[in-house]
């Protein structure tokens, strides 16, 4: 290779690099940047892919159909965390300064990443939205001004599961002496419901037995021999994740434990968990903080505007309506409604994290708004305030019929009076540990 060729190569590379750097800068000046932490790779990808597709599809729908929000185009950039906390923090640091106003909010999609970002988001003034995961006491907006946990928490999920069981048994009075087992991922996430379940066991007189399953949960034979052949509980609850879910359902079948009495939290209720379990999963139940199915107007619009024109994020339309997909859409709705609230207040231009926090403190997605979005019945209305960063915290019970989830209850509201006191107690302990002065919310 001669010197001239080398020179030409270097110049071409430099021009190419300049184009790469300058193009997003031009785009960013006109548009609202949205950073999305996703996991399309790694051991949990089967659950992460549909979420990422649902999130991206709703953002792209707004761009294609409405030209963005209030005339401001949305510029979505994904960063793959592979559900790894280190990569999650790296993604956050890489994305937080992008666009003209930085990342307006972060949805880490992982309890581990959530904990790692708690202090950073306060310093960076970027709201942390954790829908159905993360710290339950983040619902206390006086202590956690930048943490938002709609539409549900793990503690609420535990209470709703016991509420549902009490309905099946003819009332809370009939829970006395019943045996309920909790099979949980032996991690901070899996341990979240224990405190609530212990309080409820003491209150209603049922016997709670705990079965930790070490990560990743590929092998659970001994756990299920103990459950199915020794303890023989009346109900089993599961706080599982990834491959642990399908394995648990298969092992439950292997010891003939009735699937109708086996109830998972929403992260144990993905379509991707049921598929490998096959026939063993028929009758299994799971809580969901979103509705199930693909028959809603928002789905029709996504198909019509995006997929009909080859602009969908998923490989095919078949994935639309999976529960993880619907959760992705729901997260996008929460974020974009907050963005719109911020733009309505601060002007139709890209908004900052601080401005979005202001809007999230006042977020009100009511029935009428859900109808306009095309998600009436798909999501529960959400109304937040400065002090309440959760809302009603309701969830539905669903059952797997072998091919899809079917809703078998209406929205069930947890005992927010009891849980509210627990959230406040836990948040106060956190504030004391960190030296945080609660903000006034009047």
């Amino acid at each position, binding site marked *: 290779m001669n010197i001239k060729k080398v020179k030409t190569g270097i110049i071409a590379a430099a021009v190419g690099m300049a184009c790469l750097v300058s193009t997003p800068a031009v785009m960013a000046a006109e548009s609202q940047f949205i950073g999305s932490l996703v996991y399309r790779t790694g*051991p949990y990808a089967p659950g992460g892919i549909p979420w990422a597709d649902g999130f991206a599809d709703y953002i792209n729908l707004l761009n294609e159909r409405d030209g963005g929000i209030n005339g401001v185009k949305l510029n979505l950039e994904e960063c793959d965390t592979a559900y790894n906390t280190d990569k999650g923090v790296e993604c956050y640091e890489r994305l937080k300064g992008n666009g003209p106003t930085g990342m307006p909010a972060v949805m880490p999609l992982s309890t581990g990443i959530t904990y790692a970002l708690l202090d950073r988001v306060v310093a960076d003034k970027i709201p942390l939205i954790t829908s159905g995961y993360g710290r339950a006491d983040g619902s206390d907006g006086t202590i956690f001004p930048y943490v938002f946990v709609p539409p549900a928490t793990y503690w609420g999920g535990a209470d709703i599961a016991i509420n549902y069981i009490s309905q099946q048994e003819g009332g809370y009075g009939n829970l006395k002496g019943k045996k309920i087992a909790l099979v949980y991922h032996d991690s901070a996430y899996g341990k979240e419901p224990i405190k609530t379940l212990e309080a409820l066991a003491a209150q209603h007189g049922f016997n709670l037995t705990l079965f930790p399953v070490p990560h990743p949960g590929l092998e659970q034979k*001994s756990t299920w021999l103990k459950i199915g052949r020794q303890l023989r509980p009346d109900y089993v609850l599961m706080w599982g994740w990834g*491959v642990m879910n399908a394995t648990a359902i298969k092992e439950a079948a292997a010891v003939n434990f009735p699937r109708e009495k086996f109830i998972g939290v929403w992260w144990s209720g993905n379509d991707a968990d049921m598929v490998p379990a096959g026939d063993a999963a028929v009758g299994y139940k799971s809580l969901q903080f979103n509705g199930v199915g693909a028959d809603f107007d928002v789905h029709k619009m996504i198909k019509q505007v995006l997929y009909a024109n080859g602009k969908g994020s998923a490989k095919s339309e078949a994935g639309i309506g999976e529960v993880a997909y619907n959760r992705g859409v729901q997260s996008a709705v929460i974020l974009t409604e907050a963005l719109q609230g911020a733009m309505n207040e601060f002007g139709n231009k890209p908004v900052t994290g601080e401005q979005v926090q202001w809007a999230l403190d006042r977020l009100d997605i009511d029935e009428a708004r859900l109808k306009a979005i095309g998600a009436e019945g798909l999501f529960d209305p959400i109304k937040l305030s400065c002090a309440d960063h959760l809302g009603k915290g309701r969830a539905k019970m669903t059952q797997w019929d072998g091919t899809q989830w079917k809703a078998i209850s209406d929205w069930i509201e947890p005992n927010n009076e009891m849980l509210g006191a627990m959230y406040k107690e836990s948040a106060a302990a956190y504030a004391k540990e960190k030296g945080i002065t609660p903000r006034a919310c009047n």
Partner: protein
Amino acid sequence: MRLERDVFYIILASLLLMVAIPWTAGLLSEEIFFEWPFFFEVAIGGLLSGVMYSLVALGFVLIFKASGVFNFAQGAMVLFAALTLVGLNEMGLPMWLAIIATLIVMLVLAMAIERVVLRSLVNQEHIILFMATIGIAYFLDGFGQTIWGSEVKILDLGFSQNPDFYFGGLILINDFDLIAAVIAGILVIVLALFFQYTRIGRALRAVADDHQAALSVGIPLKHIWVIVWAVAGIVALVAGIMWGSKLGVQFSLALIALKALPVLILGGFTSIPGAIIGGLLIGAGEKLAEVFIAPMIGGGIEDWFAYMLALAFLVFRPQGLFGEKIIERV
């Protein structure tokens, strides 16, 4: 295989402890539910799980025997083989043809690994070869998912997954576990015969004993490496089929290598029978510990107990139960 006297005593002692400790725990603690049918149900379940661990451990043993390298990529090979099989099947190939095509892919992969990675590392330190296998693992994880996607895929070979009662209705055993045990048993017999009675098998054993001596008598090292990586690929495919039928074919399959490590520590890195007996001891030991000891100390001990059990064996047999005793004279 000649069973050394101390190995025989160690296995006998461990079997006695596996019975005595749960029985004693049942007598001493009200938390422990001990009945003989339940004990045998747990023990049989553990033995059958152990066979599944052995399937994965076999792949490690083959490559370690031939090159002295711990193949970090074995778990990734299991995932890659299973992904390829299901991917080809989804493309319309009948299952039997997809299996043959996957075997060819694993052979090509073995040749590529030998040509691209191993050939230039001949005579390098083992740690360098080990680091190279880490690279292969990451490459296979990513490459497999890039080609075939990261979604969960179903691998249904029509095996029954239902539980049945045996021994007069006293003991519940899952049919699938029995089938997996039979397949693993057949694989082990075939491998043992291959190593013992074929020309290639004898050459492999010669390479395992001494690379340079094998080269000096005309055994082609690079061909041997291709063969051994290809055989490890076939073992990975069988493990991928069995584990994939159980859990669905997904990225988590790569993590089953974690279950093979205590088996290797216990059985020895160089012995095929060691991988089998190690798997059985680890499988039964961890299940019995989880059911009959864990309730007294809070539960969830299965995974670390497997390693503890393996390390306990090392106190008496530092080379593993069936590993080769290394004597270096200075």
